[in-house]
């Protein structure tokens, strides 16, 4: 048993963000599919390599109709990788998974008429997407502040940025952040920073008694942490693929 646990290269659990094309079908579905065919006709491979998410929030169709729609789309080479805004009754195990927490991004430009090569269509759409970006105003990275102790069994999940806990994190509790984790108290549970792929994230706490800490998928359990650091104020960061820890000031 111990052999398995002391593998030098543990499995990384990373988060990743992708930009997906969201299609919003409208009723009646048959008419909408005609319009989609029209779009596809203007560009033969528009959907070919693109991950597509179906947004059916508020759409009044049942599971069977949704299944048929997904089949209709896949016969048109539109590969639906997830469905947003669905009720549990509309989904089934043989259908694309439910997707949540989607955020708006720059719209895709529909292909213009008389496009010939697939490659041209994809390129023009991809270059259209980044253009609006520089015009967006600078916004601060979001951060979550929790002003109470996180109790055993509770889970704080905030992939958008830093998490600050004004209090302790109990044994058996977990904090997962896309950014850094700051605990103004004792850290006794699990802290996983940089969960969306941020190797710069760090973990800070006033009393290091953590069960497990992880940064960008690389983790260390309490057993492997240096005993001198236990119970002290600590800072944990990632150097390459090694978790490093030191006493804070």
């Amino acid at each position, binding site marked *: 048993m111990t052999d398995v646990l002391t593998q030098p290269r543990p499995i990384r659990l990373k988060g990743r963000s992708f930009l997906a094309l969201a299609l919003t079908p409208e009723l009646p579905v048959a008419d909408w599919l005609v319009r989609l065919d029209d779009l596809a006709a203007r560009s033969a491979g528009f959907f070919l390599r693109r991950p597509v998410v179906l947004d059916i929030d508020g759409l009044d169709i049942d599971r069977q109709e949704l299944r048929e729609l997904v089949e209709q789309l896949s016969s048109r080479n539109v590969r639906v990788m997830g469905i947003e805004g669905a009720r549990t009754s509309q989904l089934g195990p043989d259908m694309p998974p439910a997707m949540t927490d989607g955020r708006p991004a720059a719209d895709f430009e529909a292909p213009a008429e008389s496009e010939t090569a697939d490659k041209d269509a994809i390129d023009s759409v991809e270059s259209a997407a980044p253009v609006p970006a520089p015009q967006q105003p600078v916004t601060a990275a979001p951060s979550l502040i929790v002003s109470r102790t996180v*109790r055993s*069994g509770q889970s704080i999940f905030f992939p958008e940025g830093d998490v600050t806990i004004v209090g302790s994190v*109990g*044994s*058996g509790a977990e904090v997962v952040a896309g950014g850094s984790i700051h605990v103004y108290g004792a850290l*006794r549970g699990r802290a996983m920073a940089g969960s969306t792929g941020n190797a710069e994230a760090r973990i800070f706490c006033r009393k290091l008694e953590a069960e497990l800490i992880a940064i960008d998928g690389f983790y260390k359990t309490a057993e492997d942490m240096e005993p001198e650091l236990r119970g002290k104020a600590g800072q944990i960061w990632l150097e390459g693929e090694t978790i490093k820890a030191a006493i804070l000031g």
Partner: protein
Amino acid sequence: MGKVIVVTSGKGGVGKTTSSAALGAALAQNGEKVVVVDFDVGLRNLDLVMGAERRVVYDLVNVIQGEAKLTQALIRDKRVETLYLLPASQTRDKDNLTPEGVEKVIAALKSAFDWVICDSPAGIERGATLAMRHADIAIVVTNPEVSSVRDSDRIIGLLDSKTLKAENGERIEKHLLLTRYDANRAERGDMLKVDDVLEILSIPLLGIIPESMDVLRASNVGAPVTLADGRSAPALAYFEATRRLKGEDLPVTIPGEKRSFLGKIFGRKAA
């Protein structure tokens, strides 16, 4: 309108039933109308500790399912006339408890009694969450050892999310009752120190009940420890806890502190 107290812990065997009976009896001895309700459906113990196991006709589940009236199920204590017991069923299980049924029973008890003490089962499932649902005050019973402390932490988290008070945005009043405290083991370092437990759980301390044979003797004769021997160390600790529950600002003493002359010369032996 009475106050509803839930005596809960998460971990089993830490002293919830003992404490529910002891605190209930202590409050009733002051003349207040108290009912202790056993929520441990299927594994009932409160009736044994109260000495009423030979008088159980109807129980909480019968009342919820409309098979009996509340007054038929309530058992009056033979020693203290303002103390009543609502026993749990032994033949059914927690699935027979419904949220609506529990709500109705608690509402009826609140209007008839000054204190409604709900003895929660161990665990975090239906029985425990229904027992805590309508509570105004929670007493978290903890032994000063690591598994009990972690389970209590979990239960405190649930008190802040699964009670009606929490759902309405109010804070439920929580108190820590440290039970089975053994001064010698604490001194040797075999038991967690009071300060460590308080630091982890961060809720106000209601009292420290020392480990004692008196508790076992009391439950064997079917009497709450505050009725069986009111001068025993645990009974005294429970009486003090009752005073704090009612708002009195009584400092908590750690049991086993030697206050002898020699102790004063050589320094206090505190855990």
